[in-house]
């Protein structure tokens, strides 16, 4: 599975940070989000369908949704008070439980209104009128709480007595008489407090039959809250309901919010990526600056989002549940282990292979073995590619090495400068651009989209084109071309 650091790198943490559940229960649900495993397809589908239901009902039930979010925002995490029900509860526990039941009086009708047409899977929020009645025998419906003496005649009597002593005290000057009254008052107060404890215990026992319902409601609020936030996220970007079937993984026009944001800040634009992956190896090639790693990260992000019950950022998506998502890139491995970057990759590969052989997995290799000498590095990349091509796992490799793509089941190339028809004109334009700004200028012309390459198709020499555009001397360019022949 992906490490925490990798989740940061692929933009998963960024996406989670966009989500702000309104209730502590929703925040808890978000924190405990886990990737689904094969076998949990039905559960995951239902969770994803709940997002679809929210998006569908939102337009006609906007007010009810707004109401839910507003009251969710007021809830506090009172699960520890609820769990103490049955035993001695303090006045503060009882206050919190009463406040929650009052909040449910607002939440439940709003939820019912939405759920009439939405029909959520596995989310039921119910009003707790009977529990509220226990804590609010006067039906005052105010949020404050006191132990009412209504059902406790002795308590009522003691409070009356205390009041009458206090009335006398107000009129009595300091002295012996006052001291006497004060001591009477202390005695009554002690009895009152004892009765209050018993009353609180009685209330707690009365609440016992509702304990599970209260807890279920906290959980349902958490799920509803998180579902609403997921729907909000889905409607903010271009996201879709994914299919969770088959063996292969395919995405049409997927994107990555973190990278979109980074690019937007620099004045650029993210190019949506489409990929169709089958069991075995797929290779992505392209010049440097070409966004191969971006493609891998965007793929990892969206596969992980689906597994965690989120809409992926794509126009269309299909992904079966996997036992694992693995990503190996030398920038991550070396730093963690103090090995050379190359050694780190190999160690990680061995770790991952044992898992990959056993179940369904997605394996992402970013320029595998680039840290060693090119002739052996190329051989290693080709060997790994050939091996992974025979496995059940879906493997995606990015590489610069020659001959790797030929061993893979499929080959994608970053479009790069391919769409530029007239390199001469662009070179001319670049000539008038200060040297320091040329790289940025070329980046502006790069097309980061992925093109499916058929076997035998000739690839453009983007690296040499870039050399030319950056104004490398003609003499060197012609020597380079000579080398290629």
């Amino acid at each position, binding site marked *: 599975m992906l490490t925490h650091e990798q989740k940061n790198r692929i933009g998963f943490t960024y996406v989670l940070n966009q989500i702000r559940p309104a209730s502590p229960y929703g925040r808890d649900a978000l924190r405990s989000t886990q990737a689904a495993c094969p076998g949990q397809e039905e559960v995951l589908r239902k969770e994803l369908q709940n997002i679809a239901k929210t998006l569908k009902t939102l337009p006609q039930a906007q007010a009810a949704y707004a109401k839910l979010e507003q009251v969710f925002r007021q809830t506090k995490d009172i699960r520890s008070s609820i769990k103490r029900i049955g035993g001695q509860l303090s*006045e*503060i526990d009882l206050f919190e439980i009463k406040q929650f039941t009052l909040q449910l009086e607002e939440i439940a009708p709003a939820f019912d209104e939405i759920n009439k047409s939405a029909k959520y899977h596995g989310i039921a929020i119910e009003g707790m009128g009977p529990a509220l009645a226990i804590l609010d025998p006067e039906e005052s419906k105010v*949020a*404050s*709480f*006191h132990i009412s003496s209504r059902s406790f005649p002795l308590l009522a009597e003691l*409070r009356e007595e205390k009041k009458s002593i*206090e009335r006398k005290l107000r009129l009595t000057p300091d002295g012996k008489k006052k001291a006497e009254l004060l001591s009477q008052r202390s005695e009554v107060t002690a009895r*009152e407090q004892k009765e209050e404890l018993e009353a609180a215990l009685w209330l707690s026992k009365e609440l016992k039959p509702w304990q599970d319902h209260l807890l279920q409601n906290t959980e349902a609020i958490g799920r509803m809250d998180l579902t609403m936030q997921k729907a909000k996220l889905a409607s903010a970007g271009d996201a879709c309901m994914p299919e969770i079937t088959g063996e292969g993984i395919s995405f049409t026009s997927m994107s990555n919010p973190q990278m979109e944001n980074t690019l937007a800040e620099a004045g650029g634009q993210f190019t949506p990526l489409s990929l169709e992956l089958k069991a075995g190896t797929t290779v992505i090639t392209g010049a440097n600056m070409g966004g191969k790693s971006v493609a891998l990260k965007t793929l990892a992000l969206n596969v992980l989002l689906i597994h965690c019950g989120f809409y992926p950022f794509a126009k269309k998506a299909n992904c079966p549940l996997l036992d694992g998502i693995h990503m190996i890139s030398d920038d991550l491995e070396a730093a963690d282990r103090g090995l050379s970057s190359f050694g780190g990759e190999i160690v990680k590969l061995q770790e991952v292979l044992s898992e990959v052989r056993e179940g369904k997995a997605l394996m992402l290799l970013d320029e595998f073995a680039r840290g060693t000498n090119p002739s052996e590095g190329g051989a290693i990349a080709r060997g790994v590619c050939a091996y992974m091509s025979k496995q059940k796992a879906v493997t995606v490799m990015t590489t610069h090495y020659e001959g790797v793509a030929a061993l893979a089941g499929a080959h994608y190339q970053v479009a790069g400068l391919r769409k530029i028809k007239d390199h001469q004109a662009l070179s001319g334009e670049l000539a008038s651009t200060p040297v320091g700004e040329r790289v940025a200028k070329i980046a502006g012309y790069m097309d980061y989209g992925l093109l499916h390459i058929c076997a035998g198709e000739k690839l453009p020499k983007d690296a040499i084109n870039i050399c030319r555009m950056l104004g490398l001397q003609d003499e060197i360019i012609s020597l380079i071309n000579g080398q290629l022949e």
Partner: protein
Amino acid sequence: MESSLFNLVQRYGSLSISGMCKNAGKTTALNSLVKNYPENETLALTSIGWDGEKTDTVTGTEKPGIYVREGSLFATSEKLLRSCDVTKEILETTGISTPLGEVVLVRALSDGNVQLAGPSIVVQLIGISKLFREHGASRTIIDGAVGRKTLCSRALAEATVLCAGASYSPSMEETIAEAAHMCSILTTAELPELKQQMGEGQPNGKYIIIGQENRHLPDEADILAEIKQSKAPRCLYIEGALTDSMLDPLVRSGLLREMKIATRDASRLLISRESSRKLKAAGGELAVLESINLAAVTINPYSAYGNHYHREMFMTRMKAAVPLPVVDVRE
């Protein structure tokens, strides 16, 4: 006839009470006020942090609770709720946590003794005051802590009462001298020009020298040299506290004859009696951006340590030493 403490402070909607030491008579002063407020007013009480247990752990003297009337509001912490013997209605849990649990707002459904424990952060105290008002409080009293550092700005309380007591020192003279010093610091006047010069924004750095032009200087600036270089400096403003060690070189330099030293409010003037005397001798003067309204001084001739003062003598001499109303609040 001597005016009562209540008469002196009744026009203020919010009040804080501070003691110059432990057992200075803060609770007695609070109780005398609580008793005097008209019955149709809803009084709300909180404290800055928690002052300690029912029995003073240092001296073993019994600490009186505050006896409130039915209908009063108070803020206390979860764990102290048990030691409040009023019949309680829980109004609000605030989410502010203290070592004694969450701060809760309570309405007294009967008369009785309460223990106060509010937040110790000013912003949170302001929040509590706001909640009190939402629940119908017409007046707020804040039981301050010992010492003047928590004697807060007017954002929190319109006026302050200082409690002076025999527990400060066996020597009455010493207690009176210190009380007089505290009063003089606390009543440091506002320099109107300061507000105009500073505008609304925060100062840009730790110091501002106000003269022909205003110079904002950072923490590490050599203030003496900077003052010497300034044209016609009238005031040195310090964002933060003014301490003895900062004041001393300024006094010695002789630069203060024409210049005032100012801080945001009097709670930032952390200078001793001795420094204050030297400053006066050098012709210097203090100023503040926002003055504190010190409404009265209360006296308590009983010492928790056994050195009680002569009640009348303490009163007479305190009155002669401080330019403020002095009240003897007895039980």
